[in-house]
């Protein structure tokens, strides 16, 4: 027996505790979602998901992600270029400011947009005069989602770009390539898996965000409901099977996210 391991009985105990904790906290909730989703049969399940409110909620969720993810992707690439390639004063402060949205409660993330754009808010009167509605309307949902997913691409890309170093870009520039050409032909191919990884994580959070979106949505059915909010409404109306049916779509999304994430991690490992 190696000196680096424990007696067999202890090993089995630790594995059992780890697996039991897992089963109780992770596997059981997942099983619970699908079990309840299909508790009234497949026809009911399909009918629930084809309900106009459910379809509208899914559309809102997809639109939100389609706006939030590309914006945060562009930001993530710019910020990681800045932080990984250059040394400048105040870099640490900038980094902590970028991470700030992750340490703010989702409810507070929604609250700040109400304070800014709500009827009583700073810009409320100005917007009201022009008949522009931001909170309790789709723009508010999208803004709150951008806020909560703000650092998610940048956080994944910064370490990847740092690990890559500057040598390849410097070589390209010395050989006469323009800055943009270097960026597209040298940097982007090097960080492509990191970009994909960031998109996957950012998208999962964008589609699943609940607290921040709940604050700014106003819960208007068929208009400002995202899929997570739709789940809440159904659940609070005691339509449990329907709530779980809608939830199962989100759970499926989470599973697809994990599979894609694991696959990309494998790709990244193979390249190094």
């Amino acid at each position, binding site marked *: 027996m190696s000196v680096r391991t424990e007696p067999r009985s202890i090993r089995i105990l630790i594995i059992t505790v780890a697996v039991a904790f897992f089963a109780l906290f*992770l596997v059981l909730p997942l099983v619970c979602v699908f079990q309840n989703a299909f508790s009234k049969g497949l026809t009911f399940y399909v009918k629930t998901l084809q309900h106009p409110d459910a379809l509208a909620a899914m559309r809102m969720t997809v639109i939100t992600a389609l706006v939030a993810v590309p914006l945060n992707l562009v930001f993530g690439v710019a910020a990681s270029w800045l932080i990984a390639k250059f*040394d400048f004063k105040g870099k640490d402060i900038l980094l902590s400011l970028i991470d700030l949205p992750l340490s703010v409660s989702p409810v507070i993330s929604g609250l700040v947009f109400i304070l800014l754009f709500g009827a009583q808010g700073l810009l409320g009167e100005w917007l009201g005069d022009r008949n522009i509605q931001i909170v309790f309307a789709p723009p508010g949902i999208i803004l709150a989602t951008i806020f909560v997913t703000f650092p998610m691409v940048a956080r994944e890309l910064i370490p990847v770009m740092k690990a890559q170093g500057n040598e390849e870009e410097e070589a390209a520039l010395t050989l006469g390539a323009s800055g943009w050409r270097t960026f597209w032909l040298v940097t982007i191919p090097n960080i492509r898996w990191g970009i994909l990884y960031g998109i996957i994580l950012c998208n999962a959070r964008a589609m699943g965000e609940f607290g921040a979106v709940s604050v700014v949505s106003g819960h208007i059915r068929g208009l400002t409901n995202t899929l997570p909010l739709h789940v809440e409404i159904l659940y609070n109306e005691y339509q449990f099977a329907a709530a779980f049916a809608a939830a199962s779509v989100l759970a499926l999304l989470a599973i697809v996210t994990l599979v894609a994430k694991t696959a990309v991690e494998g790709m990244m490992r193979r390249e190094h």
Partner: protein
Amino acid sequence: MSRRFVEPSILPGFSLTFGFTVFYLSLIVLIPLSMLFFKTASLSPREFWEILTATRTLAAYRLSFGTAFASAGINAVFGVIIAWALVRYSFPGKRIIDALVDFPLALPTAVAGIALTELYAPNGSVGRYLALAGIKGAFTPLGITIALTFVGLPFVVRTVEPVLEELDPQLEEAAASLGASRWYTIKKVIFPVIAPAVLTGFTLAFARAVGEYGSVIFIAGNMPMKTEIAPLLIMTKLEQYDYAGATTIAIGMLLISFFFLAAANFFQWQLSRKYGKV
């Protein structure tokens, strides 16, 4: 250290990326967040203090920070056990478990919330057995702790795992060859190395749990003074159009969180002083 703002580099794009990063950061994050301070500035210090120290606010703070602390503690213990099992042992299903660790980060919180409520309610498949033991799961602080434990699970595992992986095997072999028992080696050699990572994971799980909303509101029961978490109290104030009240409670939450993070940093610093930088 030069006096220049930016170190010279032949790479282009500093002004462009710096300008865009600061612009987007201000627009999306800094300006909206600064509204919290603008709003509280409209209150007199006395009004501010009265909202902050109202019994209902204090009860919500106590509950939020207490359950967040408990769940982060549970995760610190089980996170180390899970990380240890994943790094050191091989067993069937290990790769699936490893991929599933991040599940709480991928699963929308509302989904986790209704699933955990269903499981831990008095007639649920786990709650039923808890009820037999006389324990109420859902709709009590215990239920809130369960939901927060779910949400915070990945943090300790993911911070401890890489440290365990990179631990030099020679350290343990040396300890063993000098006659240390296995337990003594774990206590005196391995634990000091992973302690900073455990603390980091604990802090991350705690910070996430304090602000958590979606997974908690279903299982909490939301009784004022008893099972009403601080984010829910903010929500309630908002629904009553009491924006100043909501903002004050939010500021209080941020300040207390900041205090806890500073305390965690202090402990981190003490750990590194006691055991040396690792």
